[in-house]
């Protein structure tokens, strides 16, 4: 085989990988928003994605509503779910050790998973294709339309969320409450409200990511399993950096795509975890800079 073809293949899969990393970055953003806002790692984000996608399916396919109405209903639904979760699961656990919080979101994930399977069944459903299929030809490189559009959508959403988080009044109080809840409270910020908002946002990001993923593949209760891999990589880069999350998403996308091209599809889901283990082996401290010094 000649070198030229290999290079082309590499370029094509790299581009496709980076582009499909956009959705992963959106998922990563979902983790980071919740962590920044409430110091919680949401292991149920994958289930939020899945529930969002099912709600959309119900509205769009089952009830045959137009897509914008279906989307509005879905987002309202997941935002309500996020608020409920904050109120009845996370708020009572404030101040508990990490394991309690981690396990609470895992338990929540199990409940959502079970409910979804009970309501919608375990079989695969399919969403209508929301994104145009028309591919883009870049010289000899073919970029599938769905991948391209999902990337554009993800970028737009990430930009919107980030801008909101940075400049809106709610965003500012969310950040203040996140970095120092006591002071924020003393300064008259309604910390509970901001935490509720954070969870509602988590639901919305999750649902949008879920709908995109489901429209490109298919919809089943295990739709959200990708999220765990994204989480693993996000944690390596630091859970409180939006930029880190985006980079993590793109890297996972790139590596997954290259793995599919050069190793084989069965190894694809393994990529993020392998990355995590390898990085931990090679340079455990290096990546995270200096350890913060605790006060005694």
């Amino acid at each position, binding site marked *: 085989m000649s070198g030229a073809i290999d290079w082309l293949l590499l370029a094509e899969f790299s581009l496709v990988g980076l582009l499909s990393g956009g959705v992963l970055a959106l998922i990563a953003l979902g983790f980071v928003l919740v962590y920044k806002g409430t110091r919680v*790692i949401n292991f149920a984000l994958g289930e939020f994605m899945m529930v969002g996608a099912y709600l959309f399916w119900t509205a769009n396919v089952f009830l045959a509503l137009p897509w914008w109405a279906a989307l509005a209903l879905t987002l309202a639904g997941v935002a309500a779910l996020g608020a409920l979760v904050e109120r*009845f*699961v996370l708020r*009572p*656990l404030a101040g*508990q*050790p*990490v*394991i*309690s919080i*981690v*396990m*609470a979101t*895992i*338990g*929540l*994930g*199990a*409940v*959502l*998973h*079970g*409910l*979804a*399977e*009970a309501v919608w*069944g*375990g079989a695969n459903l399919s969403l209508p294709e929301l994104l145009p299929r028309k591919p883009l030809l870049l010289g000899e490189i073919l970029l599938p339309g769905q991948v391209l559009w999902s990337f554009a959508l993800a970028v737009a959403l990430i930009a919107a969320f980030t801008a909101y988080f940075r400049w809106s009044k709610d965003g500012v109080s969310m950040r203040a409450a996140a970095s120092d809840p006591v002071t924020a409270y003393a300064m008259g910020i309604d910390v509970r409200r901001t935490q509720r908002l954070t969870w509602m946002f988590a639901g919305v990001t999750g649902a949008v990511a879920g709908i995109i993923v489901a429209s490109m593949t298919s919809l089943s209760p295990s739709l959200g399993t990708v999220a*765990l*891999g994204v*989480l*693993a990589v996000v*944690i*390596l880069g630091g859970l409180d950096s939006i930029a880190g999350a985006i980079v993590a998403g793109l890297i996972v996308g790139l590596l997954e795509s290259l793995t599919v091209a050069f190793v084989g599809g*069965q*190894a694809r*889901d*393994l990529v*993020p*975890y*392998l990355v*995590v*283990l390898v990085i*931990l*082996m090679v340079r*455990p*401290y290096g990546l*995270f800079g200096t*350890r913060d010094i*605790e006060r*005694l």
Partner: protein
Amino acid sequence: MRIGDFHASYRHDEALFDTRAQRVWLGLLLAALAAFPFVGGSYLTYLACLLGIHLIAAAGLNVMTGYTGLISLGHAAFMGVGCYAVAVAERAGIPFFLALPLAGAASAAIGLVVGIPSLRIKGLYFAVATLAAQFVLGFVFREWESVTGGVRGANVPAASLFGFELAGDRRVYFLIAPLAVLMLLGARNLFRTRVGRAFIAIRDRDISAEVLGISLFRYKLAAFAIGSFYAGVAGGLWGYFFRVATPELFGLPLSVFYLAAIIVGGLGSILGTILGATFMTLIPEFLRALVGWAEAFGLEQAGVYLAPLRQVVFGLLIVGFLVFEPHGLAEMWRRTRRFFHLWPFRT
């Protein structure tokens, strides 16, 4: 002023079962355990074997997570290592009494490979490293066909002693039950010594533990090694019990199951391990019975809902205990005992 037999009385104070009544109860319990498979019937014997395996695995996880504060999301994968190790050892003609410790050792060794880099960093990285180990090991179980038999799995021959095969639940019971008792006692013993105290100190406040002369790295590694050893032995027993090792048995759901068991039972409590593992072993059986009745009463669709129902109940138990009884069943048990202790005098 101290008197001569003081030394002896401290020993007494430090003993596990110090009163005569406790010793009598212990004897009765052991006798009941020995008689169980003859009295209990085949279904209960099957359940008892399963419970024994869950008890060992959950005890290991509690040592690591409940007592030392290291969250492991990969416990089931380490059990898998033990299970495959037994399959391989048996193929090589190694008898079970060597194969089981080997299974534990293999799992502890892989635990060290994951633990050495990740334990140098704080908290969550360890949890994530174990999650990664869970998936990577699962991949190895699936793909390393020459050893593991791939997705179809590997058969595990029955354990045998001088030609006497421990086949069938009742016989395997006598392998599992004594080991479960021994390993639970071992876990309990840990916390009467400096090793166990160091674990708890690390969990409660790892920085000041260090100033007391406890090497964080060494003891975290020790806790992880012990936890994985327990998982490995439990996995080996799983192999001898179910006689087969397949990849999907040892996935993330089983890891989460054990975490749930120790949370429901009580983190950092051996009694909690026992109560939690028992409870979580019985819940699916109870749900199955429930669905069976529902079907018998004419709800023909009920069977479809068994799997989702299990998940929902499982998740609700985790969240419910965390929110309403964070110290788990062990705390409820203590409260009940206190109540009956004081009963006529206080309500």
